[in-house]
């Protein structure tokens, strides 16, 4: 160890922070080196004092102030643009810049290929005019100039005529082959050119003959008449000779002028030039295909054929490329549907016209197939929908004709034939039934999409495509875990849409919400927070399966045990709310709510239109007069600043926070908010942060039409609140009067259910619904995982379709429920076996509410087009539901369900 090293480690040594091995080395060095000994003496005391001094600091509790800490934790990550190594402007403008660069380069190459003397010596110009004044400029378009013009999107007329006329000699020869232009240029000096020209003049035909000789290597250009071109293009229509001779200039100014010996070189150069042009035209073509740039079709064709004639070898493929209609992006099905017959006809004619097109069509088809692979998921869902809508017997017959006998479970195959490959495949199959089917399916798809658009104001963004649980082998995965969901908004919305004559979009149908919209009269638990109820019967729709019902019911909290509620209503008072089924309904809902609130409860009200306003700040419910007068005065106007409203609502809720109370922000809105995804995320982040501090968020949706279902559901989900949709006075009564206790008084949070199947008894199972509530097996015991909430007296029903096996007396499995006590935060767990004896031999003998659950689930699966229910028809579902409806004729919801079923049956025909 040398001194430098020792010095750099001395402090560590003195502070006792040096590793064992180095201590010995250090001590050895210190014993030898006097210098370092002195250093040690000098620093030793300081270091120990310093350590003690600094350690004094260490004892203090260094913690951030609670206020600062909260502020830090409330930080929301800024939305960042995707990082690329390139600046944003570059990424944005790259295609344009590329195109521009290509044009520039081509133009430059073109200009460089011109002889150097061409650009502008006036003296030579006048001289040249003197020699050959009678030549028309219009006949002087050499290949390069055309090219320059073309590539630079029509070079300017002036520079063109300049390049044409300056410094070159032109002779016009009348001949049998029509007009021919011969040009010579590139002479090293002016004098040389002159002498040569003079000589040429003198010798007349002889010299001409010589040049002709070299010019025969030019290629005859046969141009089709372009349709929409600038006037100057028209000059190029007829046959002309491309004077290759001129090209030589590119390669060297100082070289000797072409005499008789330069023929070979000229021809080589001509070839090279031809290649260049081919490249250029290919680029131009690619450009057009890729980005549909501003080049007109006529231009592009013109380009291609122009280069073709110069390279005959390429002719065939190029001709095909030109003749084929520009390849369309693998077509959206709808397009194909609209003009199907016409398109078919058109295709036929085209094929008849040009046999070359077959190749193009194949390419087209490949592209279509590729596209359909890319959007495989989308296609699959679409197919499912289509297949579902094909359930009419006549259609199935025609399907069978077209594609062979129908195989159960493979119904999607004909759908694919009809949908994913537009035009082409149908043409090949060429059988009438398929066409009929395709027509129908496409119409159905289109109708469904229209419905999406009108009804739910969907678009895929708002209503995501449905996801379906599939069959699971119990041997492979015996656990089915999911979070509880007591929302019912999906059912209410579907009811509103169906009863007003349109189908709900498939993605908006959540089976569990349909099932849980009904009351199943499970026995209320006496001691614990939950009771579990299981039974099963044969499936009425698919006889090989059994239907397993698992019901979980929460305890009812008596009024005396209810905690005071501190509610902050955030009311959407934007212009879009100004209809009877929105703001008016909200007002009457609040009337009901205030009537049900205990005197100690307090209420704040924030309204938002263009701007959020706090109209009522923490008024006790006892003062209902004041509350109602304020509520009745709310006017709907302006835009929807949902973000601002929620922020103010939360600020108010935080200010009025009472620990031990039920602190809730309640949003009442039609969900039409003008805000971006970023702000949505921000709101969600805030919602989940404040949830931890005990402020929950419930959402009540109002109104039909444009309605952001997904956004509102997520909001309520993140805020640990409920999500309800209110479409009528009756529903408002149900939500704000009957279920208010359940809405406000949560008995358990993060309620999770796990069903463990006994693989000896259950071969396969399929959970019906709960797709977006599914959890993994491990998450069941992971108490940090957020799950659903259950309010006072609420019940939840889960349904499974199973295939059973083995000894009849063994239990089928185990149901476990795990939850957090809402008051104490204590995690509790409950487990109960699925007894084999809870079995109803026939479906008709099963309890009426079980049959109701089965019917509702099947109905919802039909509505969302689950492929599993393909085998049954809507008629059967209606039959089951009608039978239930007769027995439960006092239940308004069941009556609604019967009407919904018949409406759906008619709509889906």
């Amino acid at each position, binding site marked *: 160890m040398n001194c430098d090293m020792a*010095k*750099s*480690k*001395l*402090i*560590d040594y*003195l*502070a006792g*922070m040096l590793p064992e091995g180095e201590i010995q080395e250090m001590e050895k060095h210190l014993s030898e080196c006097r210098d370092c000994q002195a*250093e040690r003496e*000098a*620093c030793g*005391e*300081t*270091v120990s*004092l*310093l*350590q*003690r*001094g*600094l*350690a*004094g*600091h*260490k004892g*203090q*509790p*260094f*913690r*951030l*102030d609670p206020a*600062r*800490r909260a*502020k*830090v*934790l409330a*930080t*929301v*990550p*800024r939305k*960042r643009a995707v990082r690329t190594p390139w600046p944003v402007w570059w990424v944005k403008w790259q295609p344009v810049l590329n195109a521009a660069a290509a044009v520039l380069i081509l133009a430059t190459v073109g200009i460089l290929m011109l002889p150097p003397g061409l650009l502008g010596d006036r003296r030579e110009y006048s001289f040249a005019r003197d020699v050959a004044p009678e030549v028309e400029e219009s006949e002087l378009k050499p290949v390069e100039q055309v090219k320059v013009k073309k590539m630079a999107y029509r070079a300017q007329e002036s520079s063109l005529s300049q390049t044409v006329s300056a410094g070159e000699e032109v002779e016009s020869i009348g001949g049998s082959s029509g007009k021919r232009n011969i040009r010579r240029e590139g002479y090293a000096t002016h004098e040389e050119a002159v002498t040569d020209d003079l000589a040429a003049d003198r010798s007349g035909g002889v010299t001409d003959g010589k040049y002709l000789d070299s010019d025969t290597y030019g290629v005859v250009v046969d141009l089709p008449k372009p349709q929409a071109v600038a006037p100057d293009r028209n000059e190029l229509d007829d046959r002309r000779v491309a004077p290759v001779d001129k090209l030589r200039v590119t390669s060297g100014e100082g070289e000797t002028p072409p005499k008789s010996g330069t023929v070979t070189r000229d021809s080589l150069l001509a070839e090279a030039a031809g290649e260049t042009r081919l490249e250029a035209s290919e680029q131009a073509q690619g450009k057009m295909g890729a980005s549909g740039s501003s080049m007109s079709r006529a231009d592009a064709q013109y380009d291609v054929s122009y280069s073709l004639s110069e390279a005959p070898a390429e002719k065939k493929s190029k001709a095909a490329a030109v003749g084929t209609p520009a390849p369309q992006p693998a077509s959206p099905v709808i397009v194909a549907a609209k003009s199907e017959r016409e398109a078919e006809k058109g295709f036929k004619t085209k094929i008849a016209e040009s046999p070359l097109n077959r190749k193009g069509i194949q390419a087209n088809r490949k592209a279509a197939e590729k596209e359909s692979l890319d959007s495989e998921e989308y296609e699959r869902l679409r197919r499912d929908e289509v297949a579902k809508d094909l359930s009419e017997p006549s259609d199935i017959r025609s399907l069978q004709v077209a594609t062979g006998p129908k195989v159960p479970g493979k119904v999607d195959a004909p759908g694919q034939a009809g949908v994913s490959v537009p035009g082409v495949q149908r043409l090949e199959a060429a059988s009438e039934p398929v066409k009929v089917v395709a027509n129908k399916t496409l119409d159905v798809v289109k109708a469904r999409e229209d419905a999406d658009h009108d009804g739910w104001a969907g678009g895929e963004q708002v209503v995501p495509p449905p996801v379906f649980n599939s069959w699971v082998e119990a041997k492979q995965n015996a656990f089915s875990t999911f979070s509880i969901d007591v929302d019912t908004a999906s059912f209410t919305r579907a009811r509103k849409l169906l009863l007003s004559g349109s189908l709900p979009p498939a993605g908006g149908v959540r089976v569990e919400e349909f099932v849980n919209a009904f009351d199943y009269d499970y026995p209320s638990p006496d001691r614990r927070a939950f009771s579990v109820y299981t039974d099963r019967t044969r499936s009425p729709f698919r006889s090989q399966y059994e239907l397993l019902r698992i019901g979980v019911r929460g305890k009812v909290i008596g009024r005396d045990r209810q905690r005071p509620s501190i509610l902050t209503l955030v009311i959407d008072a934007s212009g879009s709310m100004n209809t009877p089924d929105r703001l008016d309904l909200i007002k009457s809902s609040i009337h009901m709510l205030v009537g049900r609130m205990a005197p100690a409860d307090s209420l704040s009200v924030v309204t938002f239109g263009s701007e959020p306003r706090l109209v009522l700040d923490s008024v006790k419910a006892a003062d209902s007069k004041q509350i109602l007068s304020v509520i009745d005065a709310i006017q709907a106007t302006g835009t929807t600043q949902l973000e601002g409203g929620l922020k103010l609502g939360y600020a108010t809720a935080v200010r009025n926070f009472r620990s031990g109370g039920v602190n809730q922000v309640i949003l009442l809105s039609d969900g039409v908010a003008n805000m971006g995804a970023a702000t949505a995320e921000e709101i969600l982040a805030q919602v*989940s*942060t404040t949830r*931890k501090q005990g402020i929950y968020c419930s959402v009540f949706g109002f109104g039909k039409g444009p309605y952001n279902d997904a956004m509102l559901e997520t909001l309520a989900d993140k805020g640990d609140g409920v999500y309800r949709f209110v479409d009528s006075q009756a529903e408002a009564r149900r939500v704000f009067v009957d279920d208010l206790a359940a809405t406000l008084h949560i008995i358990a949070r993060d309620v999770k259910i796990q069903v463990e199947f006994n693989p000896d008894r259950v071969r396969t199972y399929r959970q019906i619904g709960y797709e977006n509530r599914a959890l993994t097996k491990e998450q069941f015991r992971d108490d*940090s995982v957020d799950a659903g909430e259950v309010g006072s007296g609420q019940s939840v029903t889960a349904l499974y379709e199973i295939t059973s096996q083995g000894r009849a007396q063994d239990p089928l499995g185990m149901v476990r429920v795990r939850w957090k006590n809402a008051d104490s935060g204590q995690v509790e767990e409950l487990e109960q076996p699925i007894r084999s004896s809870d079995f109803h031999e026939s479906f008709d003998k099963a309890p009426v509410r079980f049959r109701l659950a089965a019917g509702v689930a099947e109905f919802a699966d039909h509505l969302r087009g689950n492929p599993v229910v393909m085998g049954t028809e809507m008629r059967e579902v209606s039959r089951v539901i009608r039978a239930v409806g007769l027995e439960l004729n006092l239940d308004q919801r069941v009556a609604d369900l019967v009407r919904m079923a018949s409406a759906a049956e008619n709509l889906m025909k």
Partner: protein
Amino acid sequence: MENLTGETMEAIVSEHEPALLRYASGLLHDPHAAQDVVQNVFIKLFSQWQPKPNPSQSLRAWLFRVTHNEAIDTIRRRKRLEFLHFKHAQEEASAQVCRPEDDRMERVMAAVKRLDMPEQQVVLLRLQEGLSYQEIAAITGRSEGNVGCLLHHAVKKLSRLVQQADTTSGKGGPS
């Protein structure tokens, strides 16, 4: 560390706030200013959060680096007079401690405040926070050897300053 959840945020804050606050108040000699600085550091961290695996080692280095920068900014922002006044007051307060041993220690601590910023930084990071040379190098942007040297020099300078203070102690403590 993939996504920034509330739990992650809390965990990060709890893990790093004592060290950062110690460090910041060591640099600033003002607990309130240190609170501000550390709050800003965390806000910066979370608002610039990128969902990619971020080994905690480099996270710590980043936090210390940003804390240092923020502290420097704070010092620059402060009105000079105010700062001096504050420093003076603090030094006076420290001079009031009367036990001789503690007196010497306080003198050392007071002398720390008179070191150059890089020296203070290294002393605090090494002797207070116990970071390795490698980490300190990452935080300060120096080489490891340079860190050792700087530390050595800092301590030597401290000894000198304390000695000076000792000789003038009869006239009323370090100034």
